[in-house]
């Protein structure tokens, strides 16, 4: 059984989601400051096909969070365009597509506010104006997907949950709106290894269900485990976009951007194997080595 199959069989699968394609075309954005605007993104271009997965990496301050917010539509690009499912902002239906982009902020548990898990997750769907029975179905499914079965968790106060449970509850609040493109900003920071494994499983299931994934992270191992492609931002510019490149030049590019190779890539290189064909998980590595 493959990694994906194993993950997908372990928990309920999110249903009815088909991925959205994303293209950024020369996207630029600056933060307004008293003295002068501070450019945060400069001419960023890349394409992420529907159902694809892209790791967004780069040094602290390289523009990762800004890019996610621009893609979600919380900030409008100064120039360039975010194209969703082939539709540009001027096209009919763009706003509806934008609502199908989910953004999970850094430390999203800080934004939990309702007095029950159910109400917190229901907030987004209700704001979309969904009828209450649809909201209810979406909430229960989202809680299931993140491993917080509604029977046990729906009526709990968010503050009585552990930190890892709160992080997953916040993710459920985004998933309940049925995003077809999911943007995650450093979702693994401060999670214990067990909770990270759970979150990796959740993201694997979403991928298997077809959701397009854009994952900003400093963690090269998790980025490599989850994402087919890589976008490196450097001072707001795309320093690399596309397939992972572990050639000598690719290694220099990672180092220049304060990044490192994934563990299994370094292992493969040091074993004299082709790093480009390195496994993405311990199970796959063991399969290959045994």
């Amino acid at each position, binding site marked *: 059984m493959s990694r994906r199959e194993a993950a997908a069989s372990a928990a309920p699968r999110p249903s009815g989601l088909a991925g959205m394609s994303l293209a950024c075309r020369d996207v630029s954005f600056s933060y307004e400051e008293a003295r002068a605007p501070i450019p945060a993104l400069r001419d960023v271009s890349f394409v992420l096909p529907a159902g694809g997965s892209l790791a967004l990496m*780069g040094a602290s301050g390289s523009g990762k969070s800004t890019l996610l917010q621009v893609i979600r539509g919380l900030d409008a690009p100064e120039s360039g365009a975010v194209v969703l499912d082939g539709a540009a902002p001027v096209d009919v239906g763009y706003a509806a597509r934008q609502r199908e982009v989910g953004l999970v902020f850094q430390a999203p548990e800080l934004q939990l506010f309702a007095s029950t898990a159910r109400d917190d997750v229901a907030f987004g769907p209700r704001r979309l104006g969904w009828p209450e029975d649809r909201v209810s179905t979406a909430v229960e499914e989202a809680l299931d997907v993140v491993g917080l079965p509604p029977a046990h968790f729906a009526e709990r106060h968010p503050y009585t949950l552990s930190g890892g449970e709160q992080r997953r509850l916040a993710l459920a609040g985004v998933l309940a709106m049925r995003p077809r493109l999911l943007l995650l900003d450093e979702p693994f920071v*401060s999670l*214990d290894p*067990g*909770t990270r494994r759970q979150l990796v499983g959740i993201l694997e299931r979403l991928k298997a269900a077809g959701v397009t994934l854009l994952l900003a992270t400093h963690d090269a191992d998790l980025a490599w485990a989850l994402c087919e492609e890589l976008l490196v931002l450097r001072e707001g510019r795309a320093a690399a976009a596309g397939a992972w490149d572990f050639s000598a030049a690719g290694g220099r590019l990672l180092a220049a951007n*304060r990044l490192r190779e994934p563990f299994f890539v370094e292992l493969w290189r040091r074993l004299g194997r082709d790093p480009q064909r390195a496994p993405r998980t311990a199970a796959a590595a*063991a399969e290959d*080595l045994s």
Partner: protein
Amino acid sequence: MTSSPDETAPLLDIRGLHYRYAGASADALADLDLRVHEGELVAVVGANGSGKSTLARLLGGLEKPTAARLARACGHDLLADDGRIAARRDVGVLFQNPENQLVAQCVEDDVAFGLENLAWPPADIRRRVDEMLARFGLEELHLREPHMLSGGQKQRTALAGVIAVPRRVLVLDEPTAMLDPAGRDEVLAAVRELHGEGLAVVYVTQEMDEAVGADRVVALERGTEAYAGDADGLFADVALVRRLGLGLPAAGELALALAERGRGLRGLPLTMDALLEALGGAP
């Protein structure tokens, strides 16, 4: 000089410590013992909510224990208000988020902040700050505003400020969690150097490979000690590691996966180098 009745006594000596947050129905820390001696590096690991950060704050004299049979830091009684205030001078604490720890307008003012509060003479402050800027590679950034620094630079500035005040114990609460890999390496190198000079270090982390190099690892489970000993001993007990919500370093996870497929390696490698050696040695 700080008072220490017995030089061989542990710098941190905690016995039967309890801490309960106001309004909480259970202890965040319960009947906890911890002893840390001069020059020791102790890693503290545990699931989210197991009490690691609470412990860090208590050791730094930033919270009052709810109860304890004994709670001393560098000879100061953490149960007494004046003891905690005195402990804050000997025990430096560095937190996770570099954004929250810088208070001044520029790097060198931030490094000087603790010394100014202690009313050091200006010339002594200048000398000490220059020494800290040099040691943490911050000389060229000395007038930089904190918001213009990278995460790693911010965390090094915060660490320089903590260490500028001569300390006997350094408590670090996930100091690398929010940093990029290069920033993480910078902070780890600085911590290793301080430990090499004899400073006692308590290092709270979720990164299992960071715990591997510690002299001792303490694992917390719902506020109590679930394990104390060397890293090899903790990671060899895979059932315990899983129960605690932890994991093995990547090398160890691969060794386990190999063992499941009938290719057990000699020993349990926990680092890339140990793994390569074990793979080379296996048939």
